[in-house]
């Protein structure tokens, strides 16, 4: 009888702990974590009008989605330039923009990008799962391994991207 009572208390506890643990681990690890995927295939021109050579995307690259109409892109622009001058490879994905406006924007504010992929309809952006500009992807050897939605801040850079970059640098050596 005492054993039965003991189980009556224990059983719901076990159930609660078990489901709680499973559900919380799903929420943390599966849903919030970016699903790593290969860089989608694309056939686009750069802003200069030449076809983009995908081999230029090998190694460790930041792929930054931007547009001249995007206000937050201008906000993150100085930090992006700082990263670029520190030697990180930043590649632009010009999103739903016109090449004239994009070119003017770069001339006016400076160009932190090695080159910008010109994606006026947002085709590559759609395949990447871009929900709006700005958004930045970390691409290692044509594998998209992490992303930051919205403004790329120092804090996000140091907590989300930098550890993955250091790990990737270690792997590539």
């Amino acid at each position, binding site marked *: *009888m005492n054993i*039965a*009572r003991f189980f*009556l208390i224990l*059983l*719901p506890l076990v*159930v609660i702990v078990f*489901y709680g643990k*499973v*559900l919380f681990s*799903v929420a943390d690890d*599966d*849903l919030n974590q*970016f*699903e790593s*995927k290969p860089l989608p295939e694309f056939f686009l021109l750069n802003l200069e009008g030449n076809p983009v050579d995908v081999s230029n995307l090998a190694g460790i690259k930041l792929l930054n989605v931007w547009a001249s109409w995007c206000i937050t892109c201008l906000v993150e622009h100085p930090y992006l330039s700082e990263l670029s001058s520190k030697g990180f490879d930043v590649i632009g994905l010009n999103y*739903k923009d016109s090449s004239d406006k994009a070119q003017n924007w770069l001339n006016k504010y400076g160009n932190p990008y090695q080159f910008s992929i010109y994606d006026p309809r*947002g085709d590559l952006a*759609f*395949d*990447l*799962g*871009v*929900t*709006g500009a700005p958004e930045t992807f970390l691409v290692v050897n044509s594998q998209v391994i992490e992303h930051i939605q919205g403004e790329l801040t120092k804090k996000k850079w140091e907590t989300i991207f930098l550890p993955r970059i250091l790990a990737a640098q270690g792997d590539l050596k």
Partner: protein
Amino acid sequence: MSIQNFFLSLLLFVSFGLLGEFIYEFSDTTKEKRFYNLISEVRCPKCTSGSIASSDAPVSRDLKDRIYQLIREGKSDQEIKSYVSDRFGAFSDYSPPKEGVHALLWFAPSVFLWLLLLIFFMRRRF
């Protein structure tokens, strides 16, 4: 044609042109039903909570256009859902498959309820 009539007809053309962007035309009603069912089951990636059917965010419009196109190409619902979740994550599917770890979400509440009932009746007997 008076000037008034001219501007009135101009207005008609303009409004039809605008409507054309948002109307999805289908050759048969099954496809149309599937389309409206699908867009209510895909989460808007830009919203706090809501389907792309209820959203006019640019990315939701892109998603609706793409789903429309895929249905016309004869893709199945499952193919379209995995097409979307490949790009926007498993999070995008409002009705996740009832298998694997998702099964817990669907069935855990009823399992829990039955366990409680069982315990309740067992206790009464003691």
